């Protein structure tokens, strides 16, 4: 058995006893990355020297008998969306290609304090906008189960890295399914914590009322370990919940007695692939065999979730991404070319006798903003900024944004009612297995509709976990999702662990 075949929990235990050296484990993962990354494009940057010297430092501290942190020596891959002091944080965008973060995100600071070894930064859909991994300015991530297929997104590189054993665990972020959906499509375990459970300080913002950082791992047990290291209150994030983090890694292996699972009829309607429906039904039977009770529930507003999400998330994104102005950081257009473009436009308008239009031309500052942003943002980011700007503009605010906020409340109430009856809701993560890269490139709406099973948890502020429950006839992973009430992470992890103990 090679070192990269150990689970994170096993590896941490072997590091603790000294059976395995951290430098040795780190090198094994770096070798694996060097071998597979040219094919999968999971990592945007790997700093092998830094990772190795951090690993040696941990070995030395252990040899001196120092007390080490929870993850002592565990290699971790991080989505390139969390600021790390002194290192590039690109969000897979040309906009931030040369941006060097001036401070550590709280999640990064906690990983460092837990003595994790940071392997490198993983690929993603630009600014976490996308559900395929194709929207990266630095090339699509490829699915380890079939490199011609998508990984899902937006945490594409983190999912591929864990699935291909290029990292034992990885950090992702989930605004509308960006942890759970690629976890499902790549055959790994991914948890979106309750909104406020993990600090967003230093997480590059996409939609601030929905964004949440979470663990991606091979098993629920490993996800519990990583969540324990990063969760908890943070005074630097005013939306962080002032509730102590639980000892997830200790409780995860305790089976749940009398687990009550809900099955929503809306999750098994039109559009769901037959093989996925069958695999999820089978997972439900597994839970029944474990003593769980299954109740039919209803989430009547779930058919409106995608529409609600694709108003709220772009509105928040258009506001958040206004900060990329070419003035403070990020890409800036060539000023000389921009000035001469403006002058050419002005002369042409004057020559055509259109004096009013000449006077209405952009000021140099406005044109600098517009050119800088247009040159550096990719098509999906531009689409969402446009959508959000339109929905928030005068005359449309009530019909779109305010309406969506009201429907969001109705979606939340559906969940509140369901969770009075059940501990968790079991259902699919995606409607179909991973598709071929390029298949939906010209159909943004089709891509948005892929988020149908995941966006509600973000809108409602619930938690959700995706993990493998089978494979398609083509050999592609199929995932199942459990959604839980706010702060229900412990139960979700334990429920997933129960399943994994008897199926793997």
């Amino acid at each position, binding site marked *: 058995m090679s070192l990269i075949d150990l689970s994170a929990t096993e590896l941490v235990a072997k590091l603790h006893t000294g059976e395995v050296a951290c430098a040795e484990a780190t090198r094994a993962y770096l070798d694996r990355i060097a071998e597979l990354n040219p094919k999968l494009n999971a990592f945007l940057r790997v700093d092998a020297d830094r990772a190795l010297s951090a690993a040696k430092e941990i070995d030395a501290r252990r040899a001196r008998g120092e007390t080490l942190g929870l993850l002592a020596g565990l290699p971790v891959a991080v989505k390139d969306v969390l600021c790390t002091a002194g290192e590039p944080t690109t969000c897979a965008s040309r906009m931030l290609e040369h*941006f060097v973060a*001036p*401070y550590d995100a709280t999640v990064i600071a906690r990983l460092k304090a837990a003595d994790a070894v940071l392997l490198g930064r993983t690929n993603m859909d630009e600014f976490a906008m996308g559900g395929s991994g194709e929207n990266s300015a630095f090339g699509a991530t490829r699915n380890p189960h079939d490199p011609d297929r998508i990984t899902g997104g937006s945490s594409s590189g983190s999912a591929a890295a864990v699935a291909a054993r290029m990292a034992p665990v990885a950090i992702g972020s989930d605004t509308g399914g960006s942890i759970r959906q690629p976890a499902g499509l790549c055959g790994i375990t991914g948890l979106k914590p309750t*909104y*406020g459970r993990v600090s967003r300080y230093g997480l590059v913002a996409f939609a601030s*009322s*929905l964004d949440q950082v979470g663990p991606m791992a091979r098993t629920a047990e490993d996800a519990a370990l990583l969540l324990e290291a990063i969760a908890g209150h943070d*005074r630097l994030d*005013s939306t962080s*919940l002032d509730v102590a983090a639980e000892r997830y890694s200790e409780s995860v292996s305790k089976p749940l007695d009398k687990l009550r699972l809900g099955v929503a009829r809306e999750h098994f309607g039109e559009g769901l692939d037959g093989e996925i429906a069958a695999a999820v039904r089978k997972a439900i039977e597994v839970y029944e065999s474990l003593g769980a009770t299954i109740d039919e529930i209803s989430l009547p*507003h779930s058919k*409106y979730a995608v*529409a*609600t999400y*694709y*108003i709220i998330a772009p509105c928040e994104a258009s506001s958040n991404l*206004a900060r990329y*102005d070419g*003035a*403070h*950081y*990020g890409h*800036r257009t060539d*000023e000389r070319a*921009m000035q001469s473009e403006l002058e050419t436009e002005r002369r042409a308008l004057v020559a055509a006798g259109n004096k009013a239009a000449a006077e209405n031309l*952009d*000021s*140099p*500052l*406005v*044109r*600098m903003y*517009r*050119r800088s*942003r*247009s040159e550096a943002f990719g*098509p999906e980011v*531009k*689409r969402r*900024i*446009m*959508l959000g*700007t*339109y929905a928030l503009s005068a005359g449309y605010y009530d019909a779109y944004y305010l*309406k*969506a*906020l*009201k*429907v*969001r*409340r*109705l979606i*939340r109430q559906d969940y509140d009612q369901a969770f009075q009856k059940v501990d968790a809701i079991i259902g699919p993560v995606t409607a179909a297995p991973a598709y071929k890269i390029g298949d939906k490139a010209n159909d*943004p*709406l089709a891509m*948005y509709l892929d988020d149908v099973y995941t966006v509600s948890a*973000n*809108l*409602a*502020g619930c938690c959700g976990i995706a993990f493998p429950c089978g494979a398609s006839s083509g050999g592609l992973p199929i995932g199942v999702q459990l959604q839980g009430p706010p702060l229900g992470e412990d139960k979700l992890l334990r429920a997933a662990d129960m399943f994994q103990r008897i199926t793997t």
Partner: protein
Amino acid sequence: MSLTRAEVEKVSLLARLHLSDAELDAMTAQLGQVLHYVEQLAELDTDGVEPMAHALDVANVFADDVALPGLAREAALANAPHRDEVCYLVPAVLGE
């Protein structure tokens, strides 16, 4: 509501984007499709429903009124595309 190319162009200015003709055409069609889809929310009666702007019903979070060290000027300016010793530099804001 169908979206016109002129509206998309106007929104591109509000969004501080500068779109090519091809982008404007594609955006008009794609945004139109998405707007058509999201308009299904209109069929729901939401009278009297309290808008939910946030997942948490949290009240204001106050911090003690104590000055803490912030980002040092040099660190804040380090990523500036165009700067001098102490300031960000941008194209002239006022007329020549």
